[in-house]
């Protein structure tokens, strides 16, 4: 293999790496930006914003998770709850469609306290989260 060919290959590797880096830095955004661009805004109160969608909660949850992966997810028969570094997003049913709530971390924990207490924070309540395994929890 000639030297020029080797240098072309090296340049190609570096070019691909630069492209991947640019896509990682420039691609994607915050969950707030994604919700604002994707769903219809219904109301807002400071950092607490409510959106609606015609899709069912499962589809909306999968779409948001795919676009902006959350740090943690909690589920309840009444909805999906996703935690981000600064925000908490809740997806629940709204007739045939869905309603999406986004709050900052403090207000979101307070709004959805019965569903996430003991898992994402402290506090006494009906939902204390999973305490731990039973007598036989494997090795």
């Amino acid at each position, binding site marked *: 293999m000639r*030297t020029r060919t080797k240098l072309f290959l090296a340049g190609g590797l570096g070019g691909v790496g630069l492209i991947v880096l640019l896509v990682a830095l420039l691609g994607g955004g915050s969950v707030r930006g994604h919700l604002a661009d994707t769903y219809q805004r219904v109301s807002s109160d400071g950092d607490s914003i409510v959106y609606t969608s015609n899709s069912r909660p499962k589809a909306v949850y999968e779409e948001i998770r795919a676009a902006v992966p959350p740090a943690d997810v909690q589920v309840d028969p009444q909805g999906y709850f996703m935690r981000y570094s600064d925000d908490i997003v809740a997806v629940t049913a709204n007739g045939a469609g869905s309603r999406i709530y986004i709050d900052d971390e403090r207000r979101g924990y307070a709004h959805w306290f019965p569903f996430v207490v003991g898992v994402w924070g402290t506090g006494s309540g009906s939902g204390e989260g999973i305490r731990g*395994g039973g007598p036989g929890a494997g090795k």
Partner: protein
Amino acid sequence: MRRLATVAGAVLALLFVAPAAASADVLFDPADADELAATLAEAYEGQRVCYGWRVDVDNVGMRETSVGSNFGAGQPLDETVDPEACRTTVEFQATITWTSESSESEDSASYQVLSLPTGPTTSDLDSLELISDDGLAGENPDVDVYKAVSALPLLAADAGVADALEASPAPETEAEAANGQPTNSPGSDFWRRAGGAIMWSALLILGGGVFALWAIKSSRGSARRRAASAPEEPGGPTPEFVPAEWYDPNTAPQGNVRPGPPPPPYQPSPPATPPTRKPTGRRRPTTERRPPETPTDPSATGSPAAGPRTGRSPAAGPGATKPPTTEQPGTEPSATGPRSTASPAAEPGAAEPGERAESGAPAGAPKPTDRDAQAAGAAGERDEDQTPPGGSAEKPAGKPDPETRPEG
């Protein structure tokens, strides 16, 4: 009797309405099992679909089962008291195998969602990306089972077998009253989203740089190796051309011949102008060209420098003739034509071959021209009686006898 019937009725009511208190469970803490059953019971109230779980655990050979449903922890779906209450059932089933610490086999697990008669499937649960086989076989299988069972009502609503349940945000005072605060901050969303891609891009860029350095170093090393191993030409470098006086077509090697000794080094510095010949008053021949004469030593083929230089030198081309036998003092030999000097014995004033360079006609001078050949031919005619200094009076075979040479 009446009291007995009352007690029996109360017991039956408790069995139907309230979830049974969990006993020791292989998977869940009793409180967690009760809480999960209560969650399913709330879903059942809103959707009229029965939900449950069954997890079979092989605990190092000891088989145990964790069961529960909306009827209570420890209450399996297939043992409900009122089958009419469960026209649609959705159950999470799993199998977990725990091996001993010394065993080479790893823990394993599998799961499925069973809906009767119809409802959500295992793939619907997989699409939520909440649990996995590895997670069930990991450190906290109870957390994964809890999440999977809690999602069953959502899947049933999405599958169309039940109505969706709506949630509303609680008032902030409730959390404040419970002194609820978020903890365990999850970290940067940017690094969680782009951390993997940034790592791969760094690896690619670094790999490209290392590959480029290796390519440059290997090319330099191969160039040095080629220069060091370049073979030398046998017998030394081949000169670009041989001086005219060294070439004699009659004795030049024909076909495959053994190589002769290398010619003397070539000194490519022809004079600006050929040395002029002082007029001698002699008549120059106008037309005739004489064939070149053979060298004095027939054995020295292709090796004009094998013996001492003689007065006869090979001509460079067809126009070359026998060199002259005498030379007037002060006369400069032709720089481009064959040597016109006589033998050292006959011509004391003649220049030696080695001194030719001093007289301005260096060895290996440019090729002779026709004019020089004619001049040399004229000089050669005057040297009919010249004999080679080598002492040999033999004439080369095939060469014309000077005595019989035609007059020009």
